[in-house]
């Protein structure tokens, strides 16, 4: 594409990825979400910015896929592209084999901002609204599904409250309930806990994991916190900044926060993200 110059070390890394993909295909598992060579650009009033450059990754059903990287690595832009708000200038994003063209309720988003709930609807109405708007459920069925999801996030006492009386953590729980109620193919979370205080944040991470145990949804979770990535993710994609390129894709096997493995993985991710790119990449990906 015009305006994108290939980086020097881009070539070998791409080929490593492709070999991996062939391995996946050999196993016969079709990915739920396939991101192929996606370059994203957006325009500010006076410049054209390349947010990500030829990013590849697959997300399997039931995975907790975390996109991790420092600010400016285009991770939020990447998530918006999966959400359908932004079209890639190069490459393609496929959900269940279908190319993503526009936003839709099969990919429910949970945003970082607390103002994502509609202020003119109560908690229950907020959870019900996408069900009704998309025509997925109507009447008492929508009502029952909404209440069920609100109960799952422990907000049944607030079902008839308006969002402005809730705390930040509660608002995020409503947003998660609203997304889960739609039973989307994939849940997209854009730093959903970043604006919360540290204690609430830990609690929300635990609750999210418990919800996942219960319903086993597929989630793509964007964060800039290494600890959050290890705790929440089952697979972690590391992106380098300016523009975002894949640095590594690691497994995180639900290690305990105080365990030795957790600290080791944290150190490894830190080294991959912030050290000079001399570290052998292949060794990292295989672990």
């Amino acid at each position: 594409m015009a305006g994108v110059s290939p980086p020097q070390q881009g070539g070998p890394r791409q080929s490593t990825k492709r070999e991996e993909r062939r391995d996946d295909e050999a196993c016969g598992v079709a990915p739920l979400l396939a991101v192929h060579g996606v370059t994203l650009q957006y325009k500010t009033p006076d410049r054209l910015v390349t947010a990500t450059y030829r990013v590849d990754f697959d997300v399997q059903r039931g995975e907790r896929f975390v996109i991790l990287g420092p600010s400016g690595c285009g991770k939020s832009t990447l998530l918006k592209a999966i959400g359908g708000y932004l079209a890639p200038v190069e490459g393609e994003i496929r959900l269940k084999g279908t190319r993503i063209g526009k936003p839709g309720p099969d990919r429910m988003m949970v945003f970082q901002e607390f103002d994502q709930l509609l202020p003119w609807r109560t908690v229950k109405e907020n959870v019900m609204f996408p069900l009704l708007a998309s025509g997925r459920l109507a009447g008492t069925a929508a009502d029952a599904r909404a209440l069920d999801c609100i109960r799952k996030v422990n907000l049944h006492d607030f079902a008839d409250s308006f969002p402005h009386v809730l705390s930040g953590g509660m608002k995020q729980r409503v947003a998660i309930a609203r997304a889960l109620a739609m039973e989307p193919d994939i849940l997209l979370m854009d730093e959903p806990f970043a604006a919360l205080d540290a204690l609430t944040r830990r609690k929300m991470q635990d609750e999210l994991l418990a919800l996942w145990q219960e319903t086993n949804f597929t989630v793509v979770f964007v964060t800039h916190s290494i600890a959050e990535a290890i705790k929440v993710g089952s697979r972690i994609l590391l992106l380098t900044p300016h523009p975002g390129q894949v640095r590594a894709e690691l497994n995180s096997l639900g290690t305990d926060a105080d365990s030795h493995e957790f600290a080791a993985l944290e150190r490894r991710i830190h080294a991959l993200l912030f050290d000079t790119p001399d570290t052998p990449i292949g060794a990292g990906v295989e672990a």
Partner: protein
Amino acid sequence: MLPAQRPEIVRDPVAAGALGVVEAPLSLGERIANIGAVRKLALLVALALLWEGYARWLNNPLLVPTFSSTLEAFARGIAGGELVGKAATSLRVLLIGYALGIACAAVLTIVAILSRVGTDILELMTAMFNPLPAIALLPLALIWFGLGYGSIVFVIVHSVLWAVALNTHAGFRAVSPTLRMVGRNYGLAGVRYVTAILIPAAFPSILTGLKIGWAFAWRTLIAAELVFGVSSGAGGLGWFIYENKNQLDIPNVFAGLFTVIVIGLVVENAIFRWIEARTVRRWGMQV
């Protein structure tokens, strides 16, 4: 070098009952002062007393009749049915013009929000016509629509349309990007997107526009009736004021103005306040 280690402290909290006041109802005076209607009523009484005092001191009923004689003329006009009839005539024309103006504004802003050329049209038209006083269009309106309600309705539409369109459009543009993305995430588009997301989200601005439009409509109506007198038989409040001025019945002139003020107060404090309480205040968008 660390200072010597100090002992840890663990305490049992005092039982809430032993603390004295934890929560208590406000005193009667404080509660009364918290009622907006009471405060405003007190202000109105103070203004009326000031008026009465000044008029008595001036002692010239041709310049400023007293509040009591205005009230007397007002009561006479209401009892005799003359003021009621005039007010009804004015209100009917006013409501027709107001409703038409809002309808036109709605069409213009919806087109403006859904297309860029629509935005340009709206911005250009508002910039051109908003500063144009409605009365300046009256001679033209008389030629186009003849001596009658048509011309007055036309100038009222002109005065309502731009104020409402300008505020609504500004409100739409101020809707948070997160809420917009939420709406599109649900798969909403076109008119459904505008009615389900943009209008409620921009409701504070829309309400301000409606209030300004209401005030502009009154001003235009009274001015038009003053300039152009009786229209097709029954005159309105403006004509009532004009007539009584010619007969030097100044208390009646004040009674006519007083009627306009009373209607304005009722609409603002009953109708608009009622809408506010049920919408923007309930949703926590306005305090």
